[in-house]
């Protein structure tokens, strides 16, 4: 593998930041030395050509800066939400990528999702979108108080074409429900899967939001889980070989390891599957390819980045080195997409304070014909006619 340096003195936000691909160019959301958001774009070959900062004049501004943000790609735009400690607000911005009519420019920036979020506690701002463009932001609302003690409730905000409705409770009221946003992702039928950690009780909570905006009942994942990382991997969903949709979230549990906590759409909770063969992990990340879940993490002992695969719900295989770090590594962000003729696990790491891009080819082209045989036949017929 050929590692390509993207830039110097940049880091990744706490949530998912890509990399994303559009019209052959690869994009990543990152933060400069003052924790201000930037989008960087690769040249024709992200492993060879230089990466460049895009539309620096119109970037979002985040007050004194923090790293609480996440991105989501929908078609030719990279949408994102950040916690802006000026306000403090949850804010939305969008970057228009290569195939957009206003290619490689920022669109709306610093649009207030919710303003005046006082004493939120945890400031993680997670983000995902429905296929129709609805935006969902998962975050902590203004802190609440019972008997002089504080609790933080996980809330979400949604935008369905015109304005934001905010502060919609996801975790329940009460000290025992004090919760921290952990992951969001879109599954089948445009369901948004939301994962949060209940700090007081060490429970992992899960709810799904359907496309009619109804929240599923409250599901508790494994108990006595103590996640311990500032990194937030996205929810990964896939259909297993029995046809059931599996919703998974890869997380770090202290020094125990990297786990994949899973639910099904019916709400059944599965025991976390251990990504085995390591200890002292940090900065968990995940990506899904078919029925394979890739758990990615930093091994705190070696400082390098490893991955392991769970195929169709089976236990994770042994760890494999993904990135041999030269400096101190921190957050990782990963995605699966097709680039050229290969499906790749693309990832960005912070190594020694600089950002690097690399990719792992996970599938060479399996067929040379279009996937739809009818369309292929019609193409052949048209070619014969002409």
């Amino acid at each position: 593998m050929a590692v390509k340096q993207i830039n110097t003195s940049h880091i990744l936000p706490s949530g998912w930041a890509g990399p994303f691909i559009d019209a052959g160019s690869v994009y990543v959301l990152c933060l400069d030395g003052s924790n201000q958001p930037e989008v960087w774009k690769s040249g024709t070959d992200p492993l060879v050509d230089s990466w460049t900062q895009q539309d620096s004049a119109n970037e979002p501004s985040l007050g004194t800066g923090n790293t609480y943000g996440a991105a989501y790609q929908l078609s030719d735009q990279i949408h994102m939400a950040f916690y802006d400690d000026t306000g403090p607000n949850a804010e939305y911005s969008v970057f228009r990528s290569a195939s957009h009519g206003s290619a490689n420019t920022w669109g709306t920036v610093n649009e207030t999702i919710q303003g005046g979020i006082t004493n939120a506690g945890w400031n993680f701002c997670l983000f995902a979108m429905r296929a129709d463009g609805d935006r969902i932001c998962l975050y902590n609302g203004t802190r609440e108080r019972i008997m002089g003690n504080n609790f933080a409730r996980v809330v979400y905000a949604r935008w369905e074409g015109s304005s934001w409705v905010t502060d919609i409770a996801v975790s329940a009221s009460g000290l025992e429900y004090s919760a921290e946003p952990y992951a969001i992702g879109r599954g089948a039928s445009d369901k948004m899967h939301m994962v949060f950690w209940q700090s007081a009780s060490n429970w992992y909570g899960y709810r799904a939001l359907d496309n009619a905006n109804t929240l599923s009942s409250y599901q508790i994942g494994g108990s006595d889980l103590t996640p311990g990382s500032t990194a937030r991997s996205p929810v990964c969903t896939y259909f297993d070989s029995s046809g059931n949709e599996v919703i998974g979230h890869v997380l770090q549990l202290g020094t125990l390891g990297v786990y994949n906590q899973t639910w099904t759409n019916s709400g059944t909770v599965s025991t976390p599957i251990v990504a085995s063969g390591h200890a002292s992990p940090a900065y968990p990340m995940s990506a899904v390819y078919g029925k394979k879940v890739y758990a990615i993490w930093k091994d705190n002992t070696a400082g390098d980045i490893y991955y392991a695969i769970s195929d169709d719900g089976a236990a994770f295989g042994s760890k494999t080195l993904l990135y041999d770090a030269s400096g101190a590594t921190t957050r990782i962000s990963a995605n699966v997409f097709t680039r050229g003729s290969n499906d790749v696990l693309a990832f960005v790491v912070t190594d020694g304070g600089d950002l690097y891009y690399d990719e792992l080819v996970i599938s060479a082209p399996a067929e040379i014909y279009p996937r739809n045989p009818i369309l292929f036949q019609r193409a052949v017929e048209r070619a014969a006619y002409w």
Partner: protein
Amino acid sequence: MPLKQYNSKADFDADYDLNGEPEGHPNTRPGIRLGYCRAVMLPVAQVRAAKLVEIFGWPTSTRIFIIGAGYAWTAEVLEQTYGYTNIVTSDTSPYIQSTQDQSDEAEINAAITAVGLNPASGEGATKKARLYSPGNRRRHSRSVRNEDLSNGGSRNRIKNVLGGVDVAISEDLIPAFSDAEVVQAAGWIDAIDTLDQVIHMVTEPGFGTGADPVFNWKTIEGWKALVPSHTFMSLNDWSVV
């Protein structure tokens, strides 16, 4: 004198601040916030009652006394949802005593008005309909007695309501007292009757910063060390010692 006294609405407002719109609100205005109001505290009481029943599972004939009961919402849920009909409650807060027969309509109206809505029309009226039951809905569903248990007469008045007490529960009360006051109050509770169990539901030092420092914050293990014969139940995670 307790470390923290709830003599007035201001005392409650300082320590109770809850999201009155869990269904969300437009980002063009702030969300409605409520203090010690039924609409936001009854869901909390429902969880407390459910956990008491789940953990302790007393027969429904059990005679229960709850002190520090506020407007007795937990007692209300224990009776109406779980069938515990033998419950007596007490709270010595002058504010609780003077307002328990009143509705919280004015407080809800004020909270709705504070975010720029009219509680009598439009969105404000819709919000009010969810937060407030029509009619002269009193804050409590049963009379909350004003007994501090500090003398035999006070204790007997509690005991005589049900002809005896089997289980005594203090509801998030003891963090408002000093250690010495808690030990003294524990003795008063023990003297009510031959009790099967005394349970103190307590908020433990919790999330983040900003917890009111005036309270006597302790873990349930810390409280247990102070009064070993009593049972302590965390309102943070429902663990019991």
